[in-house]
């Protein structure tokens, strides 16, 4: 019956394979392959057990209400014992086979690495991801937030650390999750086989806005990636019109600058995401909102309504200041 339900739900879901089972890289691909093995073994076992159960109950001999005979027929009992033993042996064989498959995949997952690979350092904060592209030359390092660009077809080393509580990085189409634990450096290797934008989310409960701690991995060609990285290395562009200039003043003299960085301006605080190239990102507020002026305005005015408990306070800005600020932030390509 459960099997029927299973197929029913799979039909209902109907919109293709779920994220974890539509891999975009070798790591998730290995795991999805292992899933297929486990899944079909499970389907067979469940169907067999339920079928036998129904058969046993429906086809059993008529009940007696007298005292059951305790002296069982030895022949029949031996057959039952043999049946149970055979089923147990079969279980053991299947379990060992699954175990072997599992260990093979563990080894395959560990096999991905590359010398001099692109290294991305991710720090988990309540409730956003700080991303830094490592470079031996400190001035060449790039800092961004909640959006990771990677070149297609290259193994990328992701180093993880947590600044406050435990988080867990999870981008289902690329790899399983890995925890970010205060005091324990962890890392994982990922590789995207095809270009695309892959959504992910924090998987370890981390407080009020755990639900909205999302991120985006954007896999693109090496050329596009290099161009993006070069753009990120540049400081923020100078505002060109009066409105944007006023916006920059609002940013620098108001509450914004006490938490955020915009490279090329005096704002250098690191409590919140780096906003140097904010306008170039796809989403706002850790993957919660699309990056449009309207959403940005709503977010600035009242972040607590959109993400209650988030560390960004609701600040009172009058309309003109807000428009100027939006103009300035919109110019940070």
């Amino acid at each position, binding site marked *: 019956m459960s099997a029927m339900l299973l197929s029913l739900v799979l039909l209902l879901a109907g919109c293709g394979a779920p994220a974890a089972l539509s891999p975009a890289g070798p790591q998730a691909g290995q795991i999805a392959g292992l899933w297929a093995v486990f899944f079909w073994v499970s389907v067979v076992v469940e169907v067999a057990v339920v079928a036998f159960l129904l058969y046993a109950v429906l086809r059993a001999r008529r009940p007696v209400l007298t005292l059951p005979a305790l002296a069982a027929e030895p022949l029949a009992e031996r057959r039952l014992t043999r049946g149970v033993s055979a089923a147990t042996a079969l279980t053991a064989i299947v379990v060992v086979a699954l175990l072997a498959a599992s260990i093979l995949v563990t080894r395959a997952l560990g096999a991905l690495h590359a010398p001099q690979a692109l290294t991305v350092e991710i720090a988990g904060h309540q409730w956003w991801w700080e991303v830094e592209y490592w470079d031996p030359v400190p001035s060449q390092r790039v800092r961004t937030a909640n959006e990771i660009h990677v070149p297609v077809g290259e193994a990328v080393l992701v180093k993880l650390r947590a600044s406050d509580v435990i988080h867990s990085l999870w981008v289902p189409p690329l790899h399983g999750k890995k925890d970010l634990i205060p005091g324990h450096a962890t890392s994982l290797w990922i590789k995207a086989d095809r270009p695309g934008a892959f959504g992910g989310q924090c998987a370890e409960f981390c407080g*009020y806005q755990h639900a909205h701690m999302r991120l985006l991995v954007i896999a693109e060609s090496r050329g596009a990636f290099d161009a993006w990285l070069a753009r990120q290395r540049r400081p923020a562009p100078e505002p060109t019109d009066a409105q944007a200039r006023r916006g920059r003043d609002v940013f620098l003299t*108001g509450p914004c600058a*006490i938490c955020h960085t915009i490279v090329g301006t005096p704002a250098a605080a690191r*409590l919140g995401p780096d906003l140097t190239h904010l306008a170039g990102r796809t989403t706002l507020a850790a993957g919660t909102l699309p990056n449009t002026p309207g959403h940005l305005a709503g977010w600035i005015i009242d972040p607590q309504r959109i993400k*209650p408990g988030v560390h960004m*306070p*609701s600040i*009172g800005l009058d309309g003109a200041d807000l428009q100027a600020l939006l103009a300035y932030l919109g110019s940070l390509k």
Partner: protein
Amino acid sequence: MRAAAVLGLLGALLVLTGCQREQRRFSEVAPASGRPDRLRASGFNPGDRQAPAEFRNPYERNAWAAAEGKRLYAAFNCIGCHANGGGGIGPPLMDPAWIYGGEPVEIYASIVEGRPNGMPAFGGRITDSQAWQLVTYVQSMSGLLRKDVRPSRSDHMSVRPSEQSGTSERRKPPQ
């Protein structure tokens, strides 16, 4: 019966102590008591105190606000001058001596308006709620808050008070 009575009493006790302490007041824009421009709690000279009584810290009994204050205290680099309350470039905050007054509203004024000789004015930089959260934490450092509201130890190196201030209760023998 007796179980009910005892449980009832315990319940009443919890009601009295629990509610305010446990609130998470995320979306408060500004407690009514203090816009910086209406505030002249104390003058700029040390010892010049005339704290009006009606300015009360809205978070005095709120543990979450005290903890937020602690976070902001580190985030806004109050530690840079005041250390973890022991003082350094700025005066210590965990002793009972106050240069500009230890009333909540006076601490608030120190934060939003700044003080001579280096204390910057945070008014306009931080929101009113944040200022009051900082006030709450500063109060907790010198034991002005109830014990169940005060933040517990932090997840970093434990704070050792300086050798001179032998008054800390932390160093007393346990017995």
